[in-house]
């Protein structure tokens, strides 16, 4: 009967279906966005390589090395880190990203940009969206923003105004970076960079060299946290979240929105069900007269909303990723992710947990509202026109 009601008069249910889909999609977009902001993959969009552990330690040592421009000091600190971890049974390699601000030229165009060079990394460890990694010391990869500012393409030669003079570099590829809103040039690891001009660095990164399984990685992570303190040790996802600084805020918005959506769904269900009951009083009274009890009537009315809820959930789940792409990608692009983002879709949350929460809300509202049919007596079947 419930399915028949919906198929016989679909227009009657369209507004409810639309509301449910809209509400569920909004929640799922926020869920996916929050998960993406906390995913390790986002690290790649900061122009970094994804590591097993990120460590915010030895800040004073790094600061002093950056200020003094002593490469050896930085390398020494990394060696110290590797040794300390080896002593607790964790083997791997440390690395660090260093920033230098340089003036760049191409033709009549000039632009001052942040550049990156990795210590103890190779350029093939990073992701390039077009072209290839710089293979030689006189090659660079640039971001779309830099390419636009300099009007330079892959294959062009740009000039970097370094300490020892103007040096030519061949552009071999494009990458994306949300650091400095999309600004960036990546040097080859052996590029003639003067470390005395360093302007900053990111956290230490540590990569295991023995390809451990997930359980081992978790155990090691715990050990490292015990050694250096929880607040200083991060996974790639935690690092990405801390870098954007908005993960917690979006999370809070997500829960607030969920609360609002729950209220909206309850209200829509309540109002719609009351209007159905008002219009169908005769039918309800007749059903009771011929022997349907209140619980059968409640079940019939509730089942309609269950069917609508399930259909809406399925549609919302299917469209949530494309909608997220449509709505959120422009924001990431404004932050520098010129090629967009691979969204982290947690199937359990997107397809099960959140749709279930909203479906349960629908069912509870529908059941509670349809209990009103208890007040309709079978004898009213004769008096209702």
């Amino acid at each position, binding site marked *: *009967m419930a399915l*028949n*009601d919906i198929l*016989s*008069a679909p227009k009657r249910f369209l507004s409810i279906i639309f509301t449910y889909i809209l509400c569920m999609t909004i929640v799922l977009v926020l869920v996916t966005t929050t998960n993406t902001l906390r995913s390790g993959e986002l690290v790649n969009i900061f122009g970094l390589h994804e590591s097993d552990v990120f460590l915010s330690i030895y800040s004073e040592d790094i600061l002093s090395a950056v200020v003094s421009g002593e490469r050896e000091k930085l390398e020494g600190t990394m060696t110290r880190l590797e040794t300390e971890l080896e002593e607790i049974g964790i083997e791997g390699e440390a690395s660090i990203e260093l920033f230098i601000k340089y003036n760049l030229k191409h033709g009549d165009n000039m632009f001052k940009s942040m550049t990156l060079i990795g210590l103890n990394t190779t350029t093939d460890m990073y992701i390039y969206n077009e072209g290839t990694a710089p293979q030689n010391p006189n090659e660079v990869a640039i971001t779309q923003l830099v390419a636009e500012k300099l009007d330079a393409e892959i294959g062009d030669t740009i000039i970097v105004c370094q300490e020892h003079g103007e040096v030519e570099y061949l552009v071999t590829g494009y990458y994306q970076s949300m650091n400095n809103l999309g600004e960036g040039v990546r040097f080859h690891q052996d590029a003639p960079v003067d470390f005395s001009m360093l302007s900053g660095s990111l956290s230490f990164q540590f990569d295991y060299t023995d390809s451990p399984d997930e359980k081992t990685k978790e155990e090691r992570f715990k050990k490292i946290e015990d050694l250096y303190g929880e607040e200083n040790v991060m996974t790639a996802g935690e690092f990405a979240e801390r870098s954007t600084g908005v993960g917690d805020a979006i999370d809070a918005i997500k829960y607030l929105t969920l609360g609002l959506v729950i209220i909206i769904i309850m209200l829509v269900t309540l109002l719609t069900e009351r209007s159905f009951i008002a219009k169908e009083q*005769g*039918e309800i*009274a*007749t*059903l*009771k*007269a*011929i*022997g*349907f*009890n*209140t*619980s*059968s009537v409640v079940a019939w009315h509730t089942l309609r909303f269950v069917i609508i809820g399930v259909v809406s959930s399925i549609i919302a789940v299917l469209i949530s990723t494309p909608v997220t792409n449509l709505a959120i990608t422009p924001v990431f692009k404004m932050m520098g992710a010129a090629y967009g983002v691979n969204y982290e879709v947690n199937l359990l949350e997107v397809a099960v947990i959140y749709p279930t929460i909203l479906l349960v809300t629908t069912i509870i509202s529908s059941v509670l509202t349809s209990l009103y049919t208890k007040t309709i*007596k*079978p*004898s009213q*079947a*004769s008096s*209702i*026109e």
Partner: protein
Amino acid sequence: MNILEVKDLCKTYIINKRQNNVLKNVNFSVSEGEMVAIMGPSGSGKSTLLYTVSGMDTLTAGEVKFCGKDIAKLSEKELAGLRLDEMGFIFQQMHMLKNLTVLDNIILPATQSEKANETRKETVQRGHELMRKLGIIDIADNDINEVSGGQLQRACICRSMINNPKMIFADEPTGALNRTSSDEVMAELAKLNSDGTTIMLVTHDVKVAARCTRVMYIVDGNIKGEYNLNRYENESQMRERERALNNWLMEMGW
């Protein structure tokens, strides 16, 4: 054997804090196979009596036993089950579910009942048989707004019969129909009664009442009188029955 026994039945409504005693100490019984009409002036309590004895409304005082069961002592679920399995209902307004076909409406009580313990196919077959019996098999797959009033009321009769009830209650079954349709519907009800179905109906129409085996006249919530008609054997007896009944009703104050 008495299917229905009513003893000192009282029904009171409270409207705007005022007590309205609609039924006052009503006593009667209905035997198996009878076709009983309840007649009376407007507001006399005819429909209230019908709904109270069928369990569609609660009684204020007294006792109503249907097949030996005191309906006042049954829970809502038990009462609904009794109405579903043992009673059939026909209303003046011919309420049916508009999203179902005529056949689906007819078999709806059977889909809810466990009495017959049959498959859906068997239920549909029984529905078809009933429709054939009442001459409306052609409209089985029609929507309810694609059929005439007479056909719809006959569909309501089929619905009331689908669970093989012990008794059918009808409230003005011909009230919304024209003369021709009324006659058709009453002929069907009379046929059902002659096949053994007990029927109790409320009517204003003497022609309808004349087809019954007994008429009860109710005034101000009390049964003022009863008139036995017994069964008629052919339509030619109808005019005489109507005349005799009319005379009696005039005596009652009709």
